[in-house]
């Protein structure tokens, strides 16, 4: 079964602190996405990770991918209130990216609340 598991599901942080969100998935994939969703809004693409060892950073967020461990992390540095949102990882389990349909399996999301 294709599964994507995130933890924690809820995260309450103080401003200025660091934390990591984990995304585990059940079978081989080289294509993982991180999204941000604000309440009542759609998904905002944050990072696309396309290979083992990929690391991407944007502002206070850094994402990495370890395909051998089937694990991606989203690290938050010196959190600020504006980062409060729900963060989703999504994995594309297509066996052949050039020849089979793309569809994403999402984790349940991590609801992040950053407090002053």
């Amino acid at each position, binding site marked *: 079964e294709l599964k*994507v598991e995130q933890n924690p599901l809820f995260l309450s942080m103080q401003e200025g602190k660091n934390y990591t969100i984990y995304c585990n998935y059940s079978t081989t994939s080289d*294509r993982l*996405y991180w*999204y941000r969703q604000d309440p*009542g*809004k*759609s*998904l905002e*693409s944050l990072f*696309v990770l396309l290979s083992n060892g990929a690391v991407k950073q944007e502002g206070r967020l850094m994402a990495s991918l370890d395909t051998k461990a089937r694990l991606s992390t989203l690290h938050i540095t010196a959190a600020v209130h504006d980062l409060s949102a729900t963060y*989703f990882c*999504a994995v*594309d389990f*297509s066996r*052949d*990216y*050039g*020849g*089979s*349909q*793309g*569809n*994403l*399996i*999402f*984790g*349940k*999301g991590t609801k992040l609340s950053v407090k002053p």
Partner: protein
Amino acid sequence: DAGVTQSPTHLIKTRGQQVTLRCSPISGHKSVSWYQQVLGQGPQFIFQYYEKEERGRGNFPDRFSARQFPNYSSELNVNALLLGDSALYLCASSLGWTGYYEQYFGPGTRLTVT
């Protein structure tokens, strides 16, 4: 450039009714996918269409159907609505239908079934 657009933004329906949701992809994108996001959960894949053909279907009942038009826009239809169909319905477009192509999400349609 305009992103993915969806209409309507919000919709309230009664159990047993039918609903049609609409999606216009980014210009040049030929593939449209539909996702259902129930409150508190991650989005779940419903359908993918490319060049008017269904390329993928998720684990949803036959009450759900979709189609794609020659201009690549798409409609999602849900018949015999149930309370459990209340959700945010997201449309995503991509250049192609395979996993090689990133999907771009629209703002969603919030469906409430009473």
